């Protein structure tokens, strides 16, 4: 079962939920797709790390063959190419679509490999911990996320996918293989606004979903209101708790530390598992 954990904004509690769900599940793989700022490994502190470079293909020009027709310049939607008295290629802007190489009528463009980051695989307390790391300044983490999702282990009871914040391309890529999406939100105006964005995204992709309200204080909050209005299922409410916050900010996996926290996430995993099974029956 593949469970993706999303939120419209950073700091809502995606990693808290993902790490602890992985921790309470008996046989799980934790996949950190937040490749711009992966932080799940700070909690798991995995051993036996194996690192693999991830590269993309970018164009390189043979000036002897380039006739300055500018087919490539006109094609590139990201403006990664320009032509003066010779072709200029801006590696940092290239999104590796390959179009320039395909459409060059003179075969003047060929591809070269460019390393954009890496995937690290390790183990923590029996949990497979896989993290993607995008090098600073690279335009897109999608190639790294594609590789990360190849690590989804069909033999794991649960693959927990810790998504990047927001609702852009990297998030769409991350939830592609998800059987269920957990939307983590804070009970604030900002939280509700961003929850609405990811809610629209998971609806667009027809993914079964439910909300976890983190840092919950009382029922009268904008997130709760939004969920009622849109008829979104609330899976759980994690109370605002200073001790929890302190442990979490020290890099402690809270459900390893205290039984009362363990019960919260066991119950959440249970609820989600039931939801997925129910979905499988009603929408096979």
């Amino acid at each position, binding site marked *: 079962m593949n469970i993706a954990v999303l939120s419209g904004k950073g700091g809502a509690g995606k990693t808290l939920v993902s790490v602890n769900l992985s921790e309470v599940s008996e046989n799980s793989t934790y996949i950190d797709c937040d490749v711009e700022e992966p932080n799940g490994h700070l909690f798991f502190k995995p051993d036996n790390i194996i690192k693999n470079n991830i590269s993309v293909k970018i164009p390189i020009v043979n000036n002897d063959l380039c006739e300055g027709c500018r087919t490539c310049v006109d094609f590139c939607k990201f403006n990664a190419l*320009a032509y*003066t008295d010779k072709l200029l290629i801006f590696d940092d*802007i290239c999104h590796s679509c390959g179009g320039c190489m395909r459409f060059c009528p003179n075969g003047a463009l060929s591809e070269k490999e460019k390393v954009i980051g890496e995937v690290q695989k390790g183990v923590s307390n029996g949990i497979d911990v896989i993290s993607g790391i995008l090098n600073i*300044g690279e335009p897109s983490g999608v190639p790294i996320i594609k590789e990360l999702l190849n690590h989804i282990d069909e033999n794991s009871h649960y693959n927990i996918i810790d998504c990047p914040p927001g609702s*852009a391309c990297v998030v769409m890529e991350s939830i592609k293989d998800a059987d269920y999406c957990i939307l983590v939100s804070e009970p604030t105006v900002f939280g509700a606004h961003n929850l609405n964005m990811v809610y629209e995204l998971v609806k667009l992709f027809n993914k079964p979903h439910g909300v976890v309200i983190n840092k919950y204080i009382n029922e009268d909050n904008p997130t709760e209101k939004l969920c009622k209005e849109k008829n979104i299922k609330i899976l759980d409410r994690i109370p605002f708790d200073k001790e929890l916050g302190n442990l979490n900010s020290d890099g402690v996996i809270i459900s390893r530390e205290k039984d009362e926290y363990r019960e919260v996430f066991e119950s959440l995993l249970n609820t989600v598992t039931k939801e997925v099974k129910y979905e499988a029956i009603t929408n096979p």
Partner: protein
Amino acid sequence: MKLAMPTNTDSMEGRVNNTFGRSPYFLIYDTETKEGTFFNNPAAASHGGAGIKAAQVIVDKNIDALITPRCGENAANVLNQANIKIYQSLNDTIRNNISACQEGELSTLENIHAGFHHHGGR
């Protein structure tokens, strides 16, 4: 000499725009005929690399010098490759910038910024 300038309107009464790549308009001014023509900047709404595309437009118009308040490093690379001079504009009207340039009162733009680098699609 042909000058180019990012402008905030398509009228000689306007001012220099405060950005280059995403400026709404460009002015091309011919110092010999004293004629100015404005056109919409086709790079203004680019997903990314607006500076590169805007610089390409300037290169294609056979401009000798660009007068601009700022310029990113990618755009500057394109302009330099085409030997286009880049002058620092005055925070002033289009007309005053043109006359300052003609009298040699504008200095070369030294502060090429590293760009905003939100190249779309992130």
